[in-house]
């Protein structure tokens, strides 16, 4: 069901759903890449400049 690299399971959440996520975790950026552990704890974030860059960065990370 999920496309996953060796290190990550990955998922993109778009506007407006991304803002639901941010409502629960105010510190995350939009656009942003968020690393979650299996307990849904935020362990890191990266802020790309655009949605396009977000996709490119995620592709790089999951190669």
């Amino acid at each position, binding site marked *: 069901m999920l496309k996953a690299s060796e290190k990550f399971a990955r998922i993109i959440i778009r506007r407006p759903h991304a803002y639901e996520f941010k409502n629960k975790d105010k510190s995350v950026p939009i656009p942003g890449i968020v690393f979650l552990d299996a307990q849904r704890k935020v362990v890191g974030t990266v802020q790309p400049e655009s949605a396009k860059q977000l*996709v490119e960065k995620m592709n790089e990370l999951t190669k």
Partner: protein
Amino acid sequence: MDFPKKQATVTAEAEKYDEKALLKALEKAGFGGKVVAGETKPEKGPLGADTRVPTAEEAKTYQLGKLVGKVQGQYVSGVDKGGPAEKAGLKAGDVLLVLDANKVFSRDDIEDFLRVSQPGAQVKVLVKRAGTYKEETVTVTLGANKVEDKDKHFTWQYAGLGQLDDALAAAKKDGKLVLVGLSGADT
């Protein structure tokens, strides 16, 4: 080989096929061929419903919620006769609010959800009913047709937060982190 005598629809881009030759080949193979230029859409989708964005008046009448300016819900403009939606009791004028745990703000949300759903899956659909405007949950058993992936780059794009639980479960099982992209791009 004994081919069934039935209609076949062949998808091809207009400039890339010789219609006569293709029809001849189909006839030889036992099909009554019909060639259609461009992409075809399945007659009955996995949900079996046509939807659109609710009008401002409908949003008011149905008291639909909003998130960052986007109205929640997709107005059902029609259902396929005998299709999954009709079988579940959905009808034109209903507004789809949530598919399983995924809130619906656009047709893309529905398509994304269906793309990662299995044919025959049972989906709980929260709907506001035509006429009464009351919320009800119905269960739709999805049909067999899959939604075509229009953009291969986004095969891992999901409808909403409901799918995050699946990602977390997968990560837990495989000992991985979940990489979540929060896109500011509109649906």
